[in-house]
Each structure stands twice: as structure tokens, then as C-alpha cells.
């Protein structure tokens, strides 16, 4: 049960993120939802690579050679870097939208819907 805790968290975070993206009307909250969803996937990848009693996969002064899998950690690092760039781009878009439209409510951002 204890080892399944990360996966339970992944499910909860995924639901939370999708709910935020679907039901929130504030653009910034939608961006937060995207970030939560991203964290859920990152946690899933890290949890996949875990092994019981494993240490960090670094050979410098390693206490034992029973290590967790390093590849998922590299993947997650890449995914975090991509997430930073994504959030920065989305935030700058919302700044421009706020400046031009005066609102971040997605119901009111509808110049294109006519």
C-alpha cells in the first residue's frame, strides 16, 4: 500500500489538473492546472523508476550500489525544462492578453468567436 501512494497521488493530481483546466474561468488558474497536470506526469515517471531501498544513482561516494533507475530522472529533468519554457510563454501571452483586453476571464476573451 505504501508503495502505491505515489500512484494514488498521480491520479489525484491528474484529476485536479484536468478539473482546473476544464472548469476554471481564470486564465492564470488554467495555467496552474496545466502545471499540476505536468507535475502528475513527472511524479508518475519518477515513481516508475523507484526501487525499494534504492539510493540516488550517483557513483560519487555512493553508500551502496542498490540504485534507482537514472533514466526516468533524466526524462523528468527534460520535461521540467520544457515545462519552465511552456509556463513562461503562456504567462507572457496572458500578460499581453490582459493588457489588450483588460481581463483574464476566458469567457470574456472572445474577439475571435464572432
Amino acid at each position: 500500500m505504501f508503495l502505491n501512494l505515489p500512484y494514488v497521488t498521480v491520479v489525484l493530481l491528474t484529476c485536479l489538473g484536468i478539473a482546473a483546466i476544464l472548469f476554471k474561468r481564470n486564465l492564470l488558474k488554467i495555467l496552474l492546472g496545466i502545471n499540476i497536470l505536468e507535475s502528475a506526469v513527472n511524479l508518475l515517471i519518477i515513481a516508475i523508476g523507484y526501487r525499494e531501498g534504492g539510493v540516488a544513482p550517483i557513483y560519487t561516494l555512493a553508500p551502496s550500489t542498490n540504485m534507482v533507475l537514472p533514466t526516468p530522472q533524466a526524462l523528468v529533468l527534460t520535461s521540467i525544462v520544457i515545462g519552465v519554457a511552456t509556463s513562461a510563454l503562456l504567462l507572457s501571452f496572458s500578460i499581453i492578453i490582459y493588457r489588450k483586453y483588460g481581463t483574464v476571464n476566458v469567457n470574456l476573451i472572445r474577439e475571435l468567436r464572432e
Partner: protein
Amino acid sequence: MRMSKIVRTATDILYPFIIIFGFYIILHGHLTPGGGFQGGAVVATGTALVLVAYSWKELPGLVSKNLLWFQESGGLLLFIGAGLAAMIIGFPFFYNWLAGSGSIFGTPVAFGPNPGDLNTGGFLPIMNIAVGVEVWGGLVMVLLYLLSALEREERA
């Protein structure tokens, strides 16, 4: 929006240490947790601290956008150049031709747990440095552009 004297003084004292810590993480990326992106992010945090503690009105004196552009492009070019260098001497892209060669970063590594030697890793440290420089430039640039939005907001 300039912060109080206490914050500014603390920033002045902390700034060099944050930068040095960031460089430590970048340089030891192949031995300890961390690497180019993490170290670059730490260094950028140091710069962000300065940007927050002082006002954006003083920004042009504190950081130069030209230098940041140069850092960003230069870091990425160093990264790709390291990969291309392997191709020029006849190996595939990204082949680690410096590892174990005996020259810079070329000391062979013993198998298994070891105390760690900075002069190993082949061109992994070079790539870490490239990524670190690039991330430093890129993140500070992102901060600057987001802050310049704030500046226009206050003017309006």
C-alpha cells in the same frame, strides 16, 4: 518599488555566494546531483534576487540585454559545437571523444563507487557549462521581459 535598505544589503552580501554555488553545481554536474540546468537556474535566481531587491528603474545598469542574448546563443552554440566536434574527428554526433583520453576532463574513471574526480567525464562538463550559461541567460531574459511588462503597466 525599491526594497528596504536591509533587503538590499542582504542581497549585496548573498549575491556572490549564490552565484558561486550555482557555478559549483554547474561544474560538478557530472559528479554530484545537479548539472547545467539546475546550476544555471540557481545563478539566475541570484540575478532575480537583485532584480527584486532593486527597482526595475535601475535595471539597465545591473544587467545588459545584449550580453544575455550573447550568453543564450553562445551557450547553445557551444553545446551543438561539442556534438559537431565529435563528427569532425570521425565519430557520430554527441560521441564522448574526450572521456578517458587523458587530456582535459579525460582522466579514466574507476568502476563502482569512488570519491569523485573533477577532471573526468569527457565533454559532459563542457556541455554542462554550455547549458548552464544558456539557462542563466535565458531565465534572466524571461524575467526581464516579464518585468518590463510590469513597468509598462505602472506607466499606464
